[in-house]
């Protein structure tokens, strides 16, 4: 490991460049995607696919640059406990039971892709980078802040409060369980209830 001014390059990576660069991308790309789609609704699928692709590319570069393992970003073998806990958290804690009769797949064409990409980006790579840089509190708080700002173009200010709380909730689930499956399934249920 080389050294610059008393600090190794890898430590500079952890403390500065990786969180800043990746954080900027995972907020700016979704915002751009949503704003462009608002301006040009007809190009939505292309813009959405490009945005998701760009985010995954940024994830890969950040993982390589910081020598991060799949395990570290929370990608592990799927366990029944994670599925049950995730769906349970989504239904029983966050999603209001009384809205369940209105649960619908209408408009959910991209839902699975969007949830998967968002989990990898926010609770996966960003969470892991921030945890290295400042521990779990920074990881939970920082990923929630980025998650909130990334939704700023598609939600009103009051709804953003909910998005922020959801970001904290999913970050805590990620911290407790250590994988992306639990927060992913909770996120999926929350979105399904929110869509109709």
């Amino acid at each position: 490991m080389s050294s610059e001014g008393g600090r190794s390059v890898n430590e500079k990576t952890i403390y500065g460049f990786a969180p800043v660069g990746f954080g900027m991308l995972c907020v700016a790309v979704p915002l751009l995607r949503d704003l462009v789609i608002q301006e040009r609704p007809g190009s939505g699928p292309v813009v959405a696919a490009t945005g998701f692709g760009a985010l995954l590319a940024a994830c890969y570069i950040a993982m390589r640059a910081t020598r991060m393992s799949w395990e570290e970003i929370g990608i592990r073998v799927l366990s029944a406990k994670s599925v049950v806990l995730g769906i349970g958290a989504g239904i029983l804690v966050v999603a209001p039971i009384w809205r369940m009769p209105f649960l619908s797949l209408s408009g959910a064409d991209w839902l699975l892709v969007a949830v998967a990409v968002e989990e990898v980006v926010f609770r996966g790579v960003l969470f892991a980078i921030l945890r290295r840089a400042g521990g779990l509190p920074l990881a939970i708080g920082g990923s929630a802040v980025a998650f909130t700002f990334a939704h700023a173009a598609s939600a009103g200010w009051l709804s953003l409060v909910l998005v922020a709380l959801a970001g904290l909730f999913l970050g805590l689930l990620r911290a407790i369980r250590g994988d992306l499956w639990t927060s992913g399934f909770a996120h999926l249920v929350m979105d399904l209830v929110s869509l109709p």
Partner: protein
Amino acid sequence: MDLWIRASRDGPRQPAVILESRARVLAWVGLLMVATAFLVVRQAIGGPRPYLDGYTPPPPYRWVSPPPNLAKSNQPPTSGTTTIGLTDGSSDAAGAFTDDGQITVSFNPGTFTDSTGQTGVLVQITPLVPQPASPAGVIADGNVYSMKATFVPNGKPATELHTPVLLDMRYPSHKPDAIYRVDGKNWTPLDNSTVQELLLTIDARSTQLGTFAAAHQASSGTSQGGGANPLMFLALGLAVIIGVALLAGLKIRRPL
């Protein structure tokens, strides 16, 4: 769960094993607190849609009276009917919508009641053709829809709503101020209207059925879709470039 702490900014990190169980308890407590706050806030603002993940743009708006440039490609809007069941004289929860999805009306349980042995309530939603003219100073954003409810089988109008209904209307492109209740030449805005810009929908609660339209005051401008600020695009584009540069720089600087 591991909890990593730093002795100093440049120092090594070590897993704080001693704090593991306490941190886990704290995380669970935090989780419950956040979940409670979520429910409270959600209830307070009545916002059912915090997310729009999986968004795909809605299909082209179907106009009763399309603008000239859309006249060729325009498809006529459709109507919709739904029969809501009555259980022990009280209506079930239900949703009524047009087949093209441009308007949806959600009914809570008990919205309609009956004590004369009726079996249901027929809800009909119809785009008005020709479209009624809006009063001076109000510009309609899309079609005007009539919503009527009648008891089944006697066909008598069901006009009394015991709980408000939730109206959800598509609009073409210009952001409306509100859903307006149309009563002849009087267009009255429903003051609890909420716009979902990305979905091009506006919703509001109403204590009565009748005729409704999404519309805006002429003084609120005529820009399309609320138009995002170009500076916003510029700033975000710059953020993307800087983010990519930082990540790319990382890769180059990383020791082999």
